[in-house]
């Protein structure tokens, strides 16, 4: 399958990319790693007039520290995120979820920023970004602005990126010393998550002091399981306390029915997988 014809430009700075995007008009599309976009173009589910490739912009790539914040360039590949010692140390949950994305070849090309901007509710990096209170820095002709993850994901494949804006970096508070696990439920290797749970916890004197739980594919956007978090805090790190807290996992969710699972089954999965995710996190 061959994509419909398009113009192509590969700027080398964010400013040039933003300018190219605003000049190209509404039919243009930004390409990051292309691991979601290129299949879509090949199947002709989309036919943009122009692709603006962010792959040759060095400033969009890499991981650095900025005081108490971890900053990940939007074009940092999954493979780079997986292997980055700073990510492992300060955002273990993101590393764990990234380990499960697609397959090694896709992880060599696919990028964190591309996944977040694509906003597939079954994508594995949205829930960790939400659970970890990520801030997404976007750039447009009017300058830069920071969007909290809670406001970034607005609907199925929809974000609050405005026309002409590009996602540049992902900023995370440091979660140094936290345990984490991403529990993914899918049918076959490299399939999308039917449901998945991102859990990060911090234990102090055998008691859960802090907890973050995010759900993948339980609504049109990623969902923060705040009721589970509240139920976990202050509890001893025991199987009974975890199972009890996990019963709240489907609260506030709005999953869909599809060929893989119906609503009730997804709610059931959310509870079971939350229990497994928190248990696994506590044993790391």
């Amino acid at each position, binding site marked *: *399958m*061959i*994509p*419909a*014809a*398009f*113009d*192509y430009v*590969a700027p080398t700075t964010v400013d040039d990319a933003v300018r190219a995007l605003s000049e190209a008009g509404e039919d243009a599309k930004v390409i990051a790693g*292309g*691991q979601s976009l*290129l*299949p879509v*173009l*090949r*199947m002709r589910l989309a036919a943009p007039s122009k*692709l603006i*490739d962010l*792959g040759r912009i060095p400033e969009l790539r890499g991981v650095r520290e900025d005081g108490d914040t971890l900053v990940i360039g939007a074009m940092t590949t999954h*493979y780079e995120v997986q292997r980055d010692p700073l990510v492992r140390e300060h955002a273990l949950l993101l590393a764990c979820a990234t380990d499960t994305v*697609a*397959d*090694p*070849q*896709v992880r*060599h*090309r696919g990028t964190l920023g591309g996944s977040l901007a694509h906003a597939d509710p079954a994508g594995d990096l949205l829930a960790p970004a939400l659970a970890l209170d990520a801030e997404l820095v976007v750039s447009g002709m009017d300058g830069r602005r920071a969007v909290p993850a809670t406001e970034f994901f607005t609907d199925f494949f929809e974000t609050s990126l405005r026309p002409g804006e590009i996602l540049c970096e992902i900023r995370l508070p440091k979660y140094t010393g936290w345990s984490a696990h991403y529990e993914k439920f899918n049918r076959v*290797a*490299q399939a999308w998550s039917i449901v998945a749970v991102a859990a990060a916890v911090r234990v102090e004197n055998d008691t859960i002091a802090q907890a973050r739980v995010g759900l993948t594919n339980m609504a049109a956007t990623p969902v923060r399981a705040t009721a589970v978090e509240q139920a976990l805090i202050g509890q001893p790190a025991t199987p009974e306390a975890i199972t009890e807290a996990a019963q709240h996992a489907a609260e506030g969710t709005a999953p869909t029915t599809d060929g893989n699972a119906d609503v009730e089954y997804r709610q059931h999965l959310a509870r079971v997988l939350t229990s497994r995710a928190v248990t696994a996190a506590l044993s790391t």
Partner: protein
Amino acid sequence: MRITVTVDGTKYSDDVEPRQLLVHYLRERLGKVGTVVGCDTSNCGACTVHLDGHSVKSCSVLAVQADGSEVTTIEGLARDGQLHPVQQAFHDNHALQCGFCTPGMIMQSIDLLADDPDPDETAVREGLEGNLCRCTGYQNIVRAVRDAAAKMSGGAGPEAERVGESQQVAGGGN
């Protein structure tokens, strides 16, 4: 658009349409038909090549994105009639049935061994999760990768693709 790409050690400069996929460029422009198109939906991994030393599905990369890069295909592995150790191990272990997935399996196995020179069975299966064998001949493929790992001491990444000497020593060990 004009692109310059080094493929299997040879530099090529060509005018390509932006929409041309890397796999089509390799096969149709350069005649590198050892790299096959399998599913065309980025599931199967049959079209796996190395782009600047890392495995990619060449049906999910545009030829223009490879501009200035180095590509290694299955056709660039053998040296002077001597198979790459991973190719030899696939041969020795009968790690193929119809053979269609084999180019991608071998390219991904080399990538896997570059990151993890001594993978256990689970690591091999996970490392090859992006490659499908529709003959379901996975047992011997896993055996072949483990065999290749045992015979190669220094990993199998871009280094193994470039050198002649250490590769021949490793490959001739069986």
